[in-house]
């Protein structure tokens, strides 16, 4: 049977499921895969940032939140997370 190619929405949903269940490493994997298919989506960057933050990978988290702001300067949540992580 031929494997159906993954679509970014499914990957995002699976990632979100892992994120909400505090399985941060698994969530990171899914969001990264989703980004490969949709590299300019600030929502994916934001959630990848959350997953990194959840896994205590602070530098990676900051990088993702900055990326969100590059793509969408008005992303309030990303700015808040970035501020919260400043100095950490």
């Amino acid at each position, binding site marked *: 049977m031929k494997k159906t190619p993954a679509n970014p929405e499914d990957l995002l949903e699976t990632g979100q499921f892992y994120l*909400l269940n*505090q*399985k941060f490493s698994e969530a990171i994997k899914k969001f990264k895969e989703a980004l490969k298919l949709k590299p300019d989506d600030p929502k994916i960057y934001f*959630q990848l940032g*959350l997953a990194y933050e*959840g896994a*205590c990978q602070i*530098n990676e988290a900051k990088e993702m939140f900055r990326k969100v702001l590059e793509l969408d300067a008005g992303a309030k949540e990303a700015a808040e997370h970035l501020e919260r992580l400043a100095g950490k």
Partner: protein
Amino acid sequence: MAKKFAVIGLGRFGSATAQALAEKGFEVMVIDTDENKVSALSDIASQSLVLDATDSKALKDAGIADIDIAIVSVGQKIDSSILITLLLKELGIKEVIVKAVNSLHGTILKRIGADRVIFPEREVAVKLAESFVSPKIFDYIELSPTHSVVEIAAPKLFFGKTLKQLALRERYKVQVIAIKRKIPFITEKGLPDFKEEVNIAPNADDEINEGDILVLLGRYEDLEKIERM
């Protein structure tokens, strides 16, 4: 025979050193010009003396010549520390260890015969700096020269285990004061976010999850072991 120590200057460093030596069972003579500092250590010291260590006769009368190792830590008083070091070497103390406040002070101390020069502030600062650049350490409070409280990302090995199973107090001599956990939820916009939950004085049955931050109390070297896991 066990070595006899003298600690001259009972600031934070001197007092901690005297205490550590006494705990290890050594005879320690403690000396300072401040009566309060001396009496604070009188229970653990073999001899506690209020005297000015720059006074050669007073040192001699105190029986300093019987001491094997003298530790001099008179804070910022560079001139006093130089004079005391000189006197101790003249009185025949085999090993004189002196706390220096800066490199020049250290160089002078070595020239006049100090056997060892230490820079505790610098050493602590280096350790602190190292701990801050560690991506796993989120906060650090120094409680005393030996103990601190750190906020540290739970190592992978701890995931899914209870505090009882981990037995951190027995195995690593550290106490878990609190566990900080990020609890995910969905915002009104339909996006996930976190709120932080702090479990203070956790129970033995509480489990460590991925992403937990542990607030640990312990000796620097024991905390470092966990940080390196």
